[in-house]
């Protein structure tokens, strides 16, 4: 599709915006990892370093009222969808100013104001819930769309099957986005998945499905634009398999023994972040100075958020009785 001449193409401004979102994701990821390594954050952390093009392009193309359901490895999806960083940092620090008052933490970050509806720690579970949000959009007569993120490993769990079948039957405005990074925890794609391409599985649901280069902003932009249009037009869901790689293994501290060295090196050599930066400069969409300023601004925003988050107060133990139900439980 991306090769077709009529495929939607990002213009210079779009590419710059995508790059900015990538950089916001990457700088934030870097800051989180540093803070964890310094022992100042104690959360489990699933970095998506290397996968930035996918959330950045999606963040660029979605509107504020569009919604996402993402997974434990989902902070990049939020950061690329303009989640404010102060409540994000307060949440991962387990503080009262966190989006979830410190109760959810990194695996359950939620921010409905920007359409960040669910972050799930259960493989596959983003998809059935995204359907419900899509059903609501349909009932509302709204044009908003819902993106369900899930991993390649998650394509083998029952919820995937049930959700894609229902979404297709009901023509729901849901886009199923699978960053295929080749591994589910330590298990490689081929050991877990019986078909060469996850996008092939779309056939089972009479749904359009595409495998694309998730590190290529043009390819991502083209396919995602079409999928969003289709969803907004009431034509139903799309399955997008976006090939990519996670540079830092499954969870922070993971020693990568299960990844062949050459595979990892080859992937890192194609790091999409410097590649897009170089392209922006080469194609004249931005100059070094602008990009350095962009980076400095983002780093300042992140530093401020970190400061804010780490200094937010700890929650009171009374919080155990709040938000279980709408009504507070008596002490």
């Amino acid at each position: 599709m991306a090769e077709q001449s009529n495929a939607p193409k990002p213009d210079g401004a779009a590419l710059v915006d995508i790059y900015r979102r990538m950089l916001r994701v990457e700088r934030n990821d870097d800051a989180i990892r540093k803070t964890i390594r310094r022992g100042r954050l104690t959360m489990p952390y699933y970095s998506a370093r290397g996968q930035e093009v996918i959330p950045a392009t999606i963040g660029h193309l979605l509107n504020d009222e569009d919604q996402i359901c993402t997974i434990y490895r989902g902070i990049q999806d939020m950061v690329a969808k303009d989640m404010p960083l102060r409540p994000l940092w307060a949440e991962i620090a387990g503080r009262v100013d966190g989006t979830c008052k410190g109760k959810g933490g990194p695996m359950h970050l939620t921010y409905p104001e920007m359409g960040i509806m669910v972050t799930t720690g259960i493989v596959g579970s983003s998809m059935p819930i995204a359907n419900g949000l899509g059903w609501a959009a349909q009932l509302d007569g709204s044009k908003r769309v819902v993106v369900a993120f899930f991993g390649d490993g998650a394509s083998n769990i029952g919820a995937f099957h049930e959700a894609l079948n229902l979404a297709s039957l009901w023509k729901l405005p849901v886009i199923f986005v699978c960053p295929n990074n080749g591994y589910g925890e330590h298990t490689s794609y081929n050991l877990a998945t019986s078909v060469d391409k996850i996008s092939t599985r779309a056939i089972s649901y009479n749904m359009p499905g595409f495998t694309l280069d998730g590190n290529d902003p043009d390819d991502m932009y083209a396919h995602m634009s079409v999928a969003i249009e289709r969803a907004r037009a009431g034509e139903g869901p799309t399955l997008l398999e976006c090939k990519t790689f996670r540079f830092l293994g499954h969870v922070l501290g993971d020693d990568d023994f299960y990844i062949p060295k050459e595979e990892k090196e080859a992937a890192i050599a194609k790091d999409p972040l410097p590649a897009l930066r170089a392209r922006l400069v080469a194609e004249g969409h931005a100059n070094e100075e602008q990009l350095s300023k962009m980076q400095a601004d983002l780093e300042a925003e992140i530093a401020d958020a970190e400061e804010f988050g780490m200094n937010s107060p700890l929650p009171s133990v009374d919080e155990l009785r709040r938000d279980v139900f709408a009504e507070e439980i008596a002490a």
Partner: protein
Amino acid sequence: MSGIQKMNGIQAINAAMVEAMEADPKVLVLGEDIADPQGGGVTGTMRGLSTQFGEHRVRTTPISEQAIIGAAIGAAMAGYKPVAEIMLMNFTTVAMDMIFNHAAKLRFMSGGQTSVPITIRTLTGAGWQTAGQHSDHLEGWFAHSAGIKVVCPSNPADMKGLLMSCIQDPDPCIFVENGMTLFAPGDVADDQGPIPLGKANVMVEGSDLTIISWSGQILRCQMALAGLAEAGISAELIDLRTISPWDKEAVLASVAKTGRALVVHEAVRNFGPGAEIASTISEELFGQLKAPVKRLGGAYCAVPFAKVLEDAFVPQPDDIIAAAKSLMG
């Protein structure tokens, strides 16, 4: 003054649905065979709804319980009030992640930013010889799950009133229909409105002992009352109605008065919901009881097929009478 109608649980539930859907356009219905061309649900409780309210609000689904509850959760987060049917309670097992890890927890995990006001209706109970995979009372599992309310009505009026409350409730509820009670007729006031969740119903007053029960076992307790009266035992019968949160105050007040308590449920006795009630009574009324708190529940096995075994699985009126007598010493 409003009149009273005789109706069964199916009709009462249907009436609750019609009122709820007329009052609030956000109320939705989904489940297998749920729309009218498919019969309005396996027992017909949803009959007429898709015709009256349209198939966009009343949707028949594939046999995909995870997708059913997922769709309900998502719609609820976006402001709807979906009533999802899981045809039989044993099938909640294939949707348990959606119910337990998501519906029940999302409000808490999001620090109150999102909520999941869904009602899960499901049917169960021994007595139809549907055996090991179609009969289990699993309310104890859900009562042990923080964030979901568990409602087990025993009669048509309560079915109507409690279902209305579940639908209006801002949090997830599981509404358990017992096959025996669903078909038993009862009086329902024309203006029967919502019955508050978490409040028990003292069905019969008595002075010698308190029987605490719910759902289908209420019928068997009622049968036992005659036998107890004959034996000169005055039993107070409490229909708990809501299992979680349960009405501790009402139960403790009654047992404080009678000094004796018997908890009766169809769920397997071992590690069953009755243990919470019994141990709370024993703890809170320590030193005030005239006899140990007793529990009757289903046998520790799968629900058997043969009628003679199925009957033996469930506490029968005679078992209730014998247990009550043993408490009288």
